[in-house]
């Protein structure tokens, strides 16, 4: 708790714009002391729902409902003319893309049907949570709150407002996804060659024994570095785009404060910030697609490396 006089000073002091705090507040997860929904701690783990968890649930629920509905509607057609139409066409295009240009070249013909479902799940889930992070639904809600709604501070909707960031921009989320990849690679190798042979496959056979002293630690390190790089790549790309956007938009307030005049800020906004942020948003659309593709492709490549070990 703050001292009363400090609290008073904080409240009366003219609000100074702090760009780094604003940006981090937008990008970071909500803290453990301000979760959206309080849940009890179980076995030392706090299950409270923060904004990234909420986004995860929203994405999962959306995908589950949308895809189940689409496929059910498609299957219910007459069996003699199963012609996809409309959105089902788009879904089939995604499935075919993942199967034919991600899974097939890397995993090989024999294992396509085994590993395509997993890769497809990765692709669709990552793509959906990336895209939903780009749409400023919750910022529109905040605007409504400030202009029209005026709900009390502790209403659920008000606490949700500063959520709406990309769930895949959180390192914990991508680390979980990469952990799945880590175990899937081991399982794929074990299924193709047997559990023991998979581990033997990691290092090439028939070399002079001193080489193995260097080789085995390197291979073991590589095993852990790959999922780590996956984690970092996805989360940093998603966070980076938001950081750049917010930093450029902060110029408006920084310049307004610098010159002590709102007109300076609006001028910088019109000339520099808004056009630039529109450009970066367009770039983000590409990044969102590419990152979903990269995560899936690299998982497929690692699975393929475990299956086609040429040692």
């Amino acid at each position, binding site marked *: 708790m703050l001292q009363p006089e400090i609290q008073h000073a904080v409240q009366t002091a003219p609000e100074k714009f702090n760009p*780094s705090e604003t940006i*981090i507040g937008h990008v970071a997860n909500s803290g453990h002391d301000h979760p959206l929904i309080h849940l009890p701690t179980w076995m030392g783990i706090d299950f409270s729902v923060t904004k990234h968890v909420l986004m995860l649930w929203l994405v999962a629920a959306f995908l589950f409902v949308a895809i189940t509905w689409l496929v059910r509607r498609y299957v219910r057609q007459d069996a003699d003319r199963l012609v996809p139409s409309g959105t089902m066409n788009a879904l089939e295009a995604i499935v075919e893309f993942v199967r034919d240009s991600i899974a097939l*070249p890397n995993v090989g013909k024999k294992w396509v049907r085994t590993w395509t479902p997993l890769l497809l799940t990765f692709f669709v889930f990552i793509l959906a949570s990336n895209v939903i992070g780009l749409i400023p639904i919750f910022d529109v809600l905040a605007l409504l709150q400030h202009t029209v709604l005026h709900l009390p501070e502790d209403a659920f909707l008000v606490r949700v407002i500063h959520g709406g960031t990309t769930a895949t921009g959180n390192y914990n989320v991508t680390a979980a996804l990469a952990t799945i990849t880590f175990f899937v690679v081991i399982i794929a190798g074990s299924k193709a060659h047997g559990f023991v042979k998979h581990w033997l496959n990691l290092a090439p056979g028939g070399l002079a024994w001193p080489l193995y002293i260097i080789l085995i630690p390197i291979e073991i390190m590589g095993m852990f570095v790959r999922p780590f*790089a996956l984690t*970092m*790549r996805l989360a*940093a*790309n998603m966070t*980076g785009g938001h950081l750049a956007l917010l930093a450029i938009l902060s110029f408006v307030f920084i310049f307004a404060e610098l010159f002590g005049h709102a007109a300076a800020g609006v001028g910088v906004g019109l000339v520099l910030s808004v056009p630039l942020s529109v450009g970066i948003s367009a770039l983000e659309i590409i990044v969102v697609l590419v990152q979903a593709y*990269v995560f899936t*492709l*690299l998982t497929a*490549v690692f699975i393929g490396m475990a299956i086609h070990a040429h040692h």
Partner: protein
Amino acid sequence: MGIAFMGAGLGLGLAVIGAGLGIGKLAAGAAEAIGRQPSAAAQITGAVNLPLFLLEGVAILAEVFALLIVLMNKAG
């Protein structure tokens, strides 16, 4: 403390130089190869993709660490 921020900025710049050179070389090689053999464009793009993403990952890692330097110096 100021030196830490300078280091983060310098590191970021160096990472960008390296990544830019790498992506430039890849793009140049791919463009040349496609120019020589336009029929193999799809295969060449496929071969270029993977190293491109690995390279991008390294650059992103450098940026994350630069950001970490800044954030840790702000906290401590």
